[in-house]
């Protein structure tokens, strides 16, 4: 029985969670549906690789939006990266952004339309490389937005190059003999860095490598959107995600890699919650 500790030292007993209460029910009471596609998730085949985490995370966001009934208020900002075409899968208003500037675009939109729910969806290049200034300052200003940070430790869209979150020793197309800490520096822990800023109110790291973790991820994403709905300030959920293609693994192996390796360096749990 795995215990998860959040920053206050309280442990979460995973066995106590009732699976059924978190399962989304798309239709009204009295129907026989236990699980189906959320309405906000466009019913088209996505372009992601088999076993990629994006499909799961897109769905969790759409479930959240449906459950809060905010589809007509939501404005999403899509990144540059594998999820650049995310708006093809989402049934609400979306803007693109220049690479890394996603939080700046979100700031512009949320400041002029504070009654709308504005979220960014960013990969590890968008948020932790080219966009480090923008995420730090949007967080520091305490913008009342929700950031979903997909961390799969590699640049997928462009062919598997090193990301700021690539692990030591990990082979990528730009670290052919494995990431060298001396030459390439250490993987960056963005959430731990951002937690230092008083403007950040809720930061949690989750994963989608198993159905149990997907449930936790859903809860965190829901909480992050609720923070914005309640005007409580800046929240960010980092989601460890599989990239079977550029980890050179099968999807099941990739899921295991998160459990056994990635989550060891990037620990799951609440980093900060105000």
């Amino acid at each position, binding site marked *: 029985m795995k215990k998860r500790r959040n920053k206050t030292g309280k442990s979460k007993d995973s066995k106590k969670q009732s699976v059924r209460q978190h399962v989304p029910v798309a239709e009204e009471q009295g129907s026989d549906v236990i699980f189906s596609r959320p309405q906000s998730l466009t019913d088209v085949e996505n372009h992601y690789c088999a076993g990629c985490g994006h499909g799961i995370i897109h769905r969790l966001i759409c479930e959240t939006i449906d459950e809060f009934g905010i589809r007509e*208020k939501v404005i999403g900002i899509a990144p540059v990266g594998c999820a650049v075409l995310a708006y093809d899968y989402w*049934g609400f208003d979306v803007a693109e952004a220049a690479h890394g500037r996603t939080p700046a675009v979100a700031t512009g939109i949320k400041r002029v339309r504070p009654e709308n729910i504005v979220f960014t969806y960013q990969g590890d290049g968008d948020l932790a490389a080219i966009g480090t200034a923008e995420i730090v300052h949007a967080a520091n200003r305490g913008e009342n937005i929700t950031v979903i940070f997909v961390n799969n430790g590699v640049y997928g869209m462009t062919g598997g190059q090193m990301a700021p979150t690539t692990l030591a020793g990990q082979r990528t197309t730009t670290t052919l003999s494995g990431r060298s800490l001396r030459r390439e520096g250490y993987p960056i822990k963005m959430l731990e860095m951002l937690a230092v800023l008083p403007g950040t109110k809720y930061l949690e790291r989750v994963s989608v490598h198993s159905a149990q973790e997907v449930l936790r991820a859903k809860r965190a994403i829901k909480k992050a959107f609720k923070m914005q709905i309640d005007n409580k300030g800046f929240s960010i959920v980092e989601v460890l995600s599989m990239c079977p293609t550029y980890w050179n693994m099968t999807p099941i192996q990739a899921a295991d890699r998160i459990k056994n390796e990635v989550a060891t360096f990037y620990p799951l749990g609440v980093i900060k919650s105000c």
Partner: protein
Amino acid sequence: MSYKALMCGNEACGEGAVLAGCRFYAGYPITPQNELTAYMAKRMNETGGIFIQAESELAAISMVFGAAAAGFRAMTSSSSPGISLKQEGISYLVGCELPCVIVNMQRGGPGLGNIAPSQADYFQAVKGGGHGDYKLIVLAPSSAQEFLEYTYLAFDLADKYRNPAFILGDGLLGQMMEPLNLNLKAPVTNLPKPWSLTGCRGRKPNIIRSLLLGEGVLEEHNKRLQEKFRRMKDTEVRAETFNLKDSDIVLVAYGSVARIAKASMGMARAKGLKVGLLRPITLWPFPDKVIEEISGRVKKFLVVEMSAGQMVEDVRLAVNGKAEVDFYGRMGGSIPTEDEIFERIEALI
């Protein structure tokens, strides 16, 4: 505010934006346009608008992108090096067909340069410092009053064409104080923007994007943009002319240099020399038809710029070999005097 005021060009530009209904400004401090950023901080607070001192010029242009996507009149400003940073964002704004206003108070370059006035960003503004096939309407005011009026106009033009509009000034005009008449007509701020991101209640979701991967789709998009630019060219040319009907030599200059050149023209006329002046107000679309019309009978054009010669290339294109085109310029933040220009005119006779 009373309708007469004494303001520097930077502040006049800001007031023009406020009068046009601009309610979002994001910028980053850089000399010589800091007065504009500070003025917008003050006026956005007073009018219930949004002012953000962004972490960089990169962030500021993307914040404007967001506010524009959400349907608001938005502006950013900077000076040469900061405008370089904005180029990617400008390309995105055009590709996504978003209206906004961008102001460049030019300074000496290249690189960090100095904080003195310059006109060496003409190519960047007019030929496109950003990537891709695009045009911006580029307005070149030459006084504080014109900063007020042309910034005000820029918002209407931006909304009219769903394209960014650009104000190309320089540090001299930005910091020079002049009296202003603030009595401008009310702006059209309630232009419907059904394409903007407001939340998809009662309609299909809107997507603001410039990524078009389908076969032939991006080419079609570019054709529509080019058609838009053609309409701008046909409709929005603005220029001021002096003595073109009986000139042997025509000076061509814009912004602060045009005012100096006008004095030189006066000196020349006082000596009986037939000198005229063409002052483009829109640098794009360029008043090439005006030049084409007079190229047959004018003997020489003398283009004067605070640069190594950028607008002179557009003059040469328009003259198309029918007359001589000469150039006089000062670089690196130095300002030509009316005497220097007059001497050059005399040398050309």
